[in-house]
């Protein structure tokens, strides 16, 4: 194992966070806080409890999940896309580093950043709403698994993308809508019967539900199924990454 290479890439990526602190940390924290203010404090105070939880507190896990997923994808996709774009990827491809080590370092850095951001947003939420964490360990597990899985997903997008527009398409046109429709702002019990069934096709439902369960011990779907779905998505991402490196897809000709 080339630990020096893993450390070099990891530190390089983490250093980029400090250079882009406003874009990487401050901006998502502020925008999520606005959700807390508008939907939690202002409008939320006029909405009834959902599943026995005040509306302001109810939306916190979903909003953390939204930031976690979009930032994981953004961090990892940009990290691998940018060297491709400016040409410095030659150094990565010619270095004595395995594909596993490349994934560990890039995905590790992206997941670290987004998980840290998730925790910052969680800390910020205490200023706006009263929340409790029923299963802290499971909360951290969901946080870590989601950060890793979506960082892997972002890594795949970064390799697939051959322009900046493609880099933004998946987070903006797929992940964000799926998150909004995945029970971030409501319980799926509140939907008409037919939509309750259709919404179960949305993988984000399982992530939000599981994460919310770790806070309030209430869930739209069984927590075991939520963990299983994350596992399935993680496995799918790993298979795709393995295929990318085996074939050199969009990395090597």
């Amino acid at each position, binding site marked *: 194992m080339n630990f020096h290479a893993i450390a070099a890439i990891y530190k390089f990526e983490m250093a980029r966070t400090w250079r882009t602190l406003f874009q990487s940390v401050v901006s998502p924290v502020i925008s999520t806080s606005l959700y807390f203010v508008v939907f939690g404090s202002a409008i939320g105070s006029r909405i009834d409890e959902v599943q026995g939880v005040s509306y302001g507190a109810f939306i916190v896990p979903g909003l953390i999940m939204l930031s976690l997923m979009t930032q994981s994808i953004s961090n990892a996709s940009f990290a691998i896309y940018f060297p491709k774009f400016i040409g410095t990827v030659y*150094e990565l491809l010619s270095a004595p580093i395995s594909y596993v080590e490349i994934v560990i370092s890039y995905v590790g850095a992206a997941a670290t950043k987004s998980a840290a951001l998730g925790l910052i947003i969680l800390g910020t939420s205490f200023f706006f709403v009263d929340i409790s964490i029923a299963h802290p360990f499971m909360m951290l597990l969901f946080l870590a698994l989601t950060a890793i899985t979506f960082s892997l997903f972002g890594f795949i997008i970064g390799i697939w993308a051959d322009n900046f527009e493609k880099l933004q398409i998946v987070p903006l046109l797929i992940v964000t809508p799926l998150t909004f429709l995945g029970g971030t702002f409501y319980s799926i019990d509140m939907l008409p019967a037919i939509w309750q069934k259709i919404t179960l096709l949305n993988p984000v439902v399982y992530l939000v539900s599981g994460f919310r369960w770790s806070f309030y011990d209430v869930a739209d779907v069984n927590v075991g199924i939520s963990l299983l779905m994350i596992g399935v998505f993680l496995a799918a991402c790993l298979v795709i990454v393995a295929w990318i490196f085996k074939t050199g897809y969009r990395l090597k000709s």
Partner: protein
Amino acid sequence: MPAGPPFSDKDDAVQPIISIRGLNKRYDSGFHALKNVNLDIADGDIFALLGPNGAGKTTLISVICGIVNPSDGEVRVDGHEIIADYRGARELIGLVPQELTTDAFETVWATVSFSRGLFGKPKNPAHIEKVLKDLSLWDKRNDMLMTLSGGMKRRVMIAKALSHEPRILFLDEPTAGVDVELRRSMWEVVRSLRAHGVTIILTTHYLEEAEQMADRIGVINAGEIILVEEKNELMQKLGEKRLTLHLQDSIDTVPDTLARHELDLVDNGHALLYTYNANDKRTGVNSLFRDLDSAGIRLRDVDTKQSSLEEIFVDLVKTPTPEPAADAQATAKDNA
């Protein structure tokens, strides 16, 4: 000009640090970029790879360094097969690519240190300092790359390639777009590296560069290695001079009394061309003039021209060479 054998006697005496056998690269588009390339590069050599644009120079380097997948064939770097034992092969190699590709917002020190880590080496500030000082980058160590000139960025690329103390350095068009002064200082750096035992493979369009620095010269054209030769042997060819004798009156044929000089009648009978080797002790020029006088041929003017490496190169790449790959393979088997 006939294609020389791709392997010289030197290969038998010195264990090659890079050994390429039957290498092919076909792109998905169907373009056959490398055609059955066989090549040995000796440890400690400066090897210049020449070829026109699109000849396959960068593809060949990219395959050896792991950036491009070979279609078939075998490449070994100091005995390490580049795919099965890619770590062993790659940690010996430093690559300076043709394009100036740098992280704009990194400092010189950070990017060079990053490269060392990427190649699996622990931190060694003393080595990084030495590399930066050798390349006159020490004063710029805290500058962001975006603030550097093109020439300085080129030096940074070299510093990155040297950060992990490679035994082999690939320089792909290292002095493209670099001013004369910087080019010559880079040549000094290259010579210094060779003095420390680093094998250097450089591609260049500047034939002067190859003449100045290389121990051996290889020529690649349309994906085929068509010549590998010691530079000094090539310089022998450079010794060829052409003496053009412009005649007062045109002639139809070369007189028999001048036959021993093997003159060519050119310019519609208005000039005679005499080819000789300026390095020879007896060039035959004096006897030629005596014989011309005896034959009653009066001269209007004379001029001489030395064949350059460029002319040899142009001649090589435009002359189709029959079955060079087969020749190369046969020679490879002979050497095996």
